[in-house]
């Protein structure tokens, strides 16, 4: 009686293993979770790309919601998300801060002249000094920073309509509601 179902045990264990591995396959190994989520933004200070006389510092990210977008002129996915950023730059709920990463200033400015500038301010980080502080390991990456300067989310890869509508927009709305 008790034995009648026992032969199923290996099958069930095997099935569980298959499900586990399938879930693993579906995950993108390039998306490494950031340990900085929930932590305060790192201290930094960078010359601005558009006006090297001015500096962009961590304090500029406090007081309002910010999308911090890591980009470079050599990064083709960045060009892909550029249009989305242009649309988002019209949204008054947040500022878009660029981190021009491992790039050449002339090349970067060339891209902005050609395709428009969606950024409120851009830090120029050719040597990855600030990139390392933020744990940046590729471009594009986008951090969502709340008014207190806490990193709330990191998106790896280009922002498109789907990412915006399903992930970033609800988060921004939630941050906006926090007072």
């Amino acid at each position, binding site marked *: 009686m008790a034995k009648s179902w026992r032969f199923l045990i290996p099958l069930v264990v095997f099935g569980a293993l298959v499900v586990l591995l399938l879930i693993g396959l579906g995950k993108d190994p390039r998306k490494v*979770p*950031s*340990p900085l989520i929930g932590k305060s933004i790192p201290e930094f200070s960078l010359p601005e790309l558009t006006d090297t006389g001015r500096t962009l510092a961590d304090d500029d990210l406090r007081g309002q919601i910010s999308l911090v977008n890591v980009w470079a002129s050599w990064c083709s996915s960045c060009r892909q998300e550029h249009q989305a950023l242009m649309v988002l730059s019209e949204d008054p709920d947040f500022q878009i801060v660029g981190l021009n990463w491992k790039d050449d200033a002339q090349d970067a400015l060339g891209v902005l002249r050609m395709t428009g500038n969606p950024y409120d301010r851009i830090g120029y980080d050719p040597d*990855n000094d600030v*990139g390392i*502080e933020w*744990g940046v*390991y*590729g471009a594009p990456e986008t951090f969502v920073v709340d008014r207190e300067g806490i990193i709330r989310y990191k998106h790896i890869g280009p922002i498109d309509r789907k990412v915006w509508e399903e992930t970033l927009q609800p988060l921004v709305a939630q941050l906006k509601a926090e007072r």
Partner: protein
Amino acid sequence: MTRPIQAILLALLLFTAGIAAAYTLEEFQFDSPEQQEEFRELIAKLRCLVCQNESLAGSQAELAQDLRNEVYEMMRAGRSEDEILDFLVARYGDFVLYEPPLKPSTYLLWFGPFVLIGIGAFVVIRTIQRKKASPEQAVSDAERNRIEQLLKANPSDDRPRPSDS
């Protein structure tokens, strides 16, 4: 030369070329061979997040170069190995380490295989003990007759005969 041998030689060549390109320590200056060795060991423990299956020591990615420089600078500044590892983990996460740290969220990873082996061993031992404990089945007269018949019907068969125990 046959095609497979050519292919193997080519693979070997590519492999050794990869190793030759992997060590780019010439650009770093060290005070002593020990320090160089320490640096070499340290960057071998760290993962390049761009290539993921390469260590910082082996990777030619630009990010790996930046992180090698960072590690080098920190070492020159007298920071200990643990401090350097903590610095990178705080920014890039545990994934930057090739060997995952032992902590509650990785217990399954570290001990899971041993638990599975334990369960397997338990099942095997119990099955064997069960088999031992169960009494031999008695052979009925009808079965004995059938056995005799079969043995007689095929006397030249050189398969081992079942020993009567």
